[in-house]
């Protein structure tokens, strides 16, 4: 485990000096816009956080860093697992920051005067139980789902295939939804929504536990699969 | 002790080391019982392989010019060392042969050559 943490630290050092500034800029712009639009818009930077560490894959490939990893006392499996953990960690940090900002934007209340219709929908959603926390949790789950699939594909097809894997991920998800619609009449999606609504209504805490748990769990499964791919991989 | 190697020479490096240490011992340029650099130290200073310096030291030790003290290293053999003495006598005889040949080539008779030798010893 400590080996994985050391690898995560390494990922963070590499990315900190590469993408942090543009990313922080992005996040700030979005959050600021969110103050004017709606608290839900403030949380959307979370969507981009995970993608911030994507350059790690191309950096690995361009500098043939398998040589460095090959000389360090680490296993290939742990390299893959650490990569997923880095994604989950960065996304979680972005989540916390944007949630704090979202709550703050409610306090400050600019969107209430500037966008009264959105304020109205905000209030309605609040009443229905779709709180900021719940939306944030949901977005986190979606991001983990997307990143989990994309990173696994990157390990499968090679670190340089960023564009390909992004499109492929999108297609897979789309394909899944379409297949569900065609084969099961959209039943799977229905079951999903039902479960989520029930949880939401029953207990917000339970919702968080289940969805965060599922997100991290999904990341872990993808991490383990990628670990296996890496182990067998011919270099 | 200074050793200067000629990389482009045909003489193998271990030979060059041997020759230079030998002549320094025979010419008295190094004190008896003086400690030599270790095999690895010498390799590092001359930027050559350890096996080369090992071979040079082993052969020098076999020929009696240096002695190896286990645990301590290599030292210039003391002058009363039998092998060294024999070696020095051999060197002297070689020098005599060369001198005699040169003298004869110059047309000197044997008695004249001996006179010249005495002259050097007294002078």
């Amino acid at each position, binding site marked *: 485990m400590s080996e994985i943490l050391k690898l995560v630290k390494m990922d963070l050092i590499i990315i900190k000096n*590469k993408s942090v500034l543009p990313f922080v800029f992005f996040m700030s712009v979005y959050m600021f816009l969110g103050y004017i639009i709606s608290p839900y818009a403030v949380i959307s930077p979370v969507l981009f956080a995970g993608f911030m560490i994507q350059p790690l894959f191309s950096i690995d490939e361009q500098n043939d860093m398998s040589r460095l990893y090959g000389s360090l*006392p*680490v296993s290939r499996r742990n390299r893959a697992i650490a990569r997923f953990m880095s994604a989950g960690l960065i996304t979680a940090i972005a989540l916390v920051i944007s949630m704090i900002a979202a709550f703050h934007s409610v306090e400050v209340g600019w969107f209430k005067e500037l966008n009264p219709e959105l304020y109205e929908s905000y209030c309605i959603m609040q009443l229905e139980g779709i709180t900021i926390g719940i939306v944030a949790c949901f977005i986190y789950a979606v991001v983990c789902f997307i990143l989990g699939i994309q990173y696994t594909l990157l390990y499968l097809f090679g670190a340089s295939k960023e564009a390909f894997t992004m499109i492929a991920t999108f297609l897979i998800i789309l394909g899944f939804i379409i297949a569900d619609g065609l084969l099961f009449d959209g039943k799977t999606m229905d079951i999903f929504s039902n479960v989520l609504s029930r949880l939401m209504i029953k207990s917000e805490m339970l919702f968080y536990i289940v969805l965060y748990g599922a997100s991290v769990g999904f990341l872990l499964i993808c991490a383990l699969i990628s670990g296996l791919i890496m182990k067998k991989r011919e270099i | 002790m200074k050793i200067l190697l000629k990389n482009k020479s045909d003489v193998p490096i271990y030979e060059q080391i041997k020759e230079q240490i030998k002549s320094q011992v025979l010419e008295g340029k190094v004190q008896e019982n003086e400690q030599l650099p270790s095999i690895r130290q010498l390799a*590092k200073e001359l930027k050559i*392989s350890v096996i080369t310096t090992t071979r040079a030291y082993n052969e020098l030790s076999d020929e009696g010019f240096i002695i190896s003290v286990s645990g301590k290293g290599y030292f210039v053999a003391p002058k009363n060392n039998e092998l060294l003495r024999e070696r020095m006598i051999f060197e002297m005889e070689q020098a005599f042969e060369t001198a005699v040949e040169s003298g004869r080539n110059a047309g000197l008779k044997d008695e004249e050559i001996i006179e010249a030798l005495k002259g050097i010893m007294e002078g």
Partner: protein
Amino acid sequence: MEYIMKIDNLCKSYKAFSLKNVSFSLPKGYIMGFVGQNGSGKTTTIRSMLGIANKDSGNIELFGLDNVKDYREIKQRISVVFDSLCYPPHLKIKHIESMLKSFYDKWDSEEFHRLIKKFKLHENVKIGKFSKGMRMKLMIAVALSHKAELIILDEPTSGLDPVARDELLDILTEYISDENNSILFSTHITADLERIADYVTVLNDGEVWYTGTKDEIMDKYVVIKGDEADLPDEIMNKSIGYHNYRNGFEAMLEREIVSDLPEEIEYEKANLDDILIYIAKESAKNE
């Protein structure tokens, strides 16, 4: 004799190339030069040792430990220096240290900084801006900062100017002056090896062509030249890389056979470059 590295019948196949039964060993405390044409398998061998490439069969032992099972302990005790920077170029030296030191139990920060100073490397410049020589010295500084007992260098001198190469040799001979340290040094610059290597392994087309002491291989072969008409057939058949030009022929021969040569044929000592050239010519003939 204690062996720091023992490779036994290493086999690894790719589509266009394979390592076939590569075996050689390095005794502790010595330097082994690893030579061969480009594509002869040197880098593949090193990658197999490190587990970067999955070997098909064979045993690799480092410090008496299996390279697959005990890789963690092995990698604590070895360092690898590559021909090009293996770190992200946008980082600075302080980032490299902070990235790497937690992986090594024996990381010596003081020693690392002493070496950085000694090599005159700028701590606040992105390493991508370093010259080739500086990049090599950075990798060496890392290699020497965690008390590694074996340093593996994969063509570290390619593209280096003679001054930097000489500095590298200085560093390596200093390292090997401790008899607990060993070096495996793969390179094209055979002049360096002819000086400091104790042992040499020659790879040709994925196979070991020679492994043994440097002194032995440097003495073993001669290059012969002359008129084809003067050369007896049995000797031509025993020669390596025989080629007839308009002005005469050239070939390599084992020194022992030289006594059977007629007077008209000239010969001189074959150095490592010659050996590589002639065995390549011989391989080309046999294709």
